[in-house]
């Protein structure tokens, strides 16, 4: 005997940083059998807005696409414009961009670890990792003057220098961050609270990961060694040795391990960059008018491949500017991961691709057969999930 499936709308009130999403889940009992995504609820029309602003004004607009990977976006933007201008930025600027990019990655991964722990009800880890996140945020503030929108990049270089005193402070901060992440990785490997909720959940097979064009840690946790930093080096990555981390578990815990290990790699990259920091200027002057041309710029943002496309027409404003952030690239894979899983695993699987999930999400459960409807907040769903697992 077969029962009719029930459709559950999920969202769209998700105060994400980049992309709030709405999912329509089709469930059969506790199993998810179908997912349909719908995005665009805070579509701000940034691509259109860039066409109406000068290249310098756009720098500030692009910075505000995301509240976490703001540096990745401006790096991508400045790179594209510098390529069309045909200018090479000073080596010192390249290294400073790299240092900020990696600090940003550490920040993102600490933030993610806390959110993932929160989703599975491991509040202690959430509090601990967010406390330690403050270390890296303080370092970013020390270098740039800002905690979130660093405003370090400008067309032609960077806006602030890294002095020897700052280097010394970063070095101390990195030691603490590395030690803490070692501890968290140990916990993730031994603590049943994590392994029971994250092992074998949200499976994305390598074949599917490629077909669905997954990016970033999500792709690398499916055993595919792809990283823009290594494959298509930009800024100073071709001069700095580092490893591309992969795990082949294809599940949420592999995504966790990938991010833990990437923090260690980032720490090493920053140490190397600070040791080999070239002397010289940090920026060069560039013309305001950009000649006619086009460029495709790629950056490995903390969440994966970020791609910008710029087309210019010889004026002070771009003709067309296109941005594709990594979360959008991972949504088809996310849908694949959710199908076949339990309702209780929805929060952690969604958190697994790192879409900046906030805890004020709302969900509505609709039973289409008798038109009954009930609404769960993200918090209630989280509690439901924890209770559901406790029963077992």
């Amino acid at each position: 005997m077969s029962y009719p499936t029930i459709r559950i709308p999920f969202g769209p009130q998700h105060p994400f940083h980049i992309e709030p999403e709405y999912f329509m889940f089709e469930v059969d009992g506790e199993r998810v059998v179908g997912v349909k995504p719908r995005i665009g609820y805070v579509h701000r029309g940034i691509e259109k807005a860039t066409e109406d602003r000068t290249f310098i004004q756009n720098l500030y607009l692009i910075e505000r696409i995301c509240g976490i990977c703001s540096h990745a976006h401006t790096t991508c933007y400045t790179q594209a414009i510098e390529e069309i201008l045909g200018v090479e930025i000073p080596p010192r600027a390249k290294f400073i961009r790299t240092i900020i990019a990696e600090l940003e990655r550490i920040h993102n991964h600490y933030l993610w670890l806390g959110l993932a722990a929160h989703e599975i009800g491991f509040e202690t880890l959430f509090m601990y990792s967010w406390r330690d996140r403050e270390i890296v945020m303080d370092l970013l503030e020390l270098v740039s003057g800002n905690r979130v929108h660093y405003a370090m990049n400008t067309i032609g270089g960077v806006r602030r220098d890294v002095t020897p005193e700052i280097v010394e402070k970063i070095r101390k901060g990195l030691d603490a961050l590395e030690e803490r992440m070692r501890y968290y990785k140990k916990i993730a490997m031994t603590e049943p609270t994590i392994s029971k909720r994250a092992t074998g959940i949200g499976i994305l097979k390598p074949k599917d990961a490629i077909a669905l064009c997954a990016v970033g840690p999500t792709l690398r946790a499916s055993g595919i060694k792809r990283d823009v930093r290594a494959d298509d080096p930009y800024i100073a990555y071709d001069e700095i040795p580092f490893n591309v981390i992969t795990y082949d578990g294809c599940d949420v815990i592999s995504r966790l391990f990938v991010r833990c290990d990437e923090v260690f790699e980032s720490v090493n990259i920053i140490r190397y960059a600070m040791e080999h920091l070239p002397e010289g200027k940090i920026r060069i002057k560039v013309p305001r008018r950009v000649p006619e041309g086009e460029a495709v710029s790629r950056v490995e943002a903390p969440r994966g491949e970020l791609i910008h496309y710029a087309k210019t027409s010889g004026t002070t404003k771009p003709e067309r500017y296109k941005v594709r952030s990594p979360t959008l690239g991972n949504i088809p894979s996310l849908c694949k991961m959710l199908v076949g899983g339990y309702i209780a695993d929805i929060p952690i699987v969604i958190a697994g691709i790192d879409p900046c999930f906030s805890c004020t999400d709302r969900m509505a459960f609709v039973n289409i057969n008798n038109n009954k409807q009930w609404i769960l907040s993200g918090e209630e769903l989280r509690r439901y999930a924890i209770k559901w697992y406790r029963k077992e």
Partner: protein
Amino acid sequence: MTEETTEENEIVRKMKHLIGKNVLESEVTRPRRIFILVNKKVFGKAIRYLTKRMDFSHVSTITGVDVGEEIEVIYHLNRAGTTELSLKVRVAKDKLVLPTITDIIPGATLYEREVHDILGVIFEGHPDLSPVILPEGWPSDVYPLRKEWTIKKIQKKVTKGGKR
């Protein structure tokens, strides 16, 4: 830019060999960046060749650009994480139809829907071209990324005479 671009030039040469004069423009701007504009007639053949035979199996994104009488659709294809090939094809505004590539690369679903939303290109064979970015109730004749729709004009249209 002193790095070698032999491999990139080789890819362009192979494309020219495959579809001949239907490669309308081609450019290697720097190592790992290729731009190729192909005739719409051979678009299906070109993308199949690139994805199946040349291993450009990752679609980074799809961009749509308004270039006057036509819409230029750019497929940013990637090979093994390194070389980024931007395959361009132009479609006339009065007949905005392209075959879908979701049957070859399922990961392109959202990108095609996005281009459909903002520029009105119809991807034939796409399973679901419902709005993905624009809100429900968005006027069906407003394609925000087209040049004729300036920000002021869009504001006037969607907020009923400029008033909220």
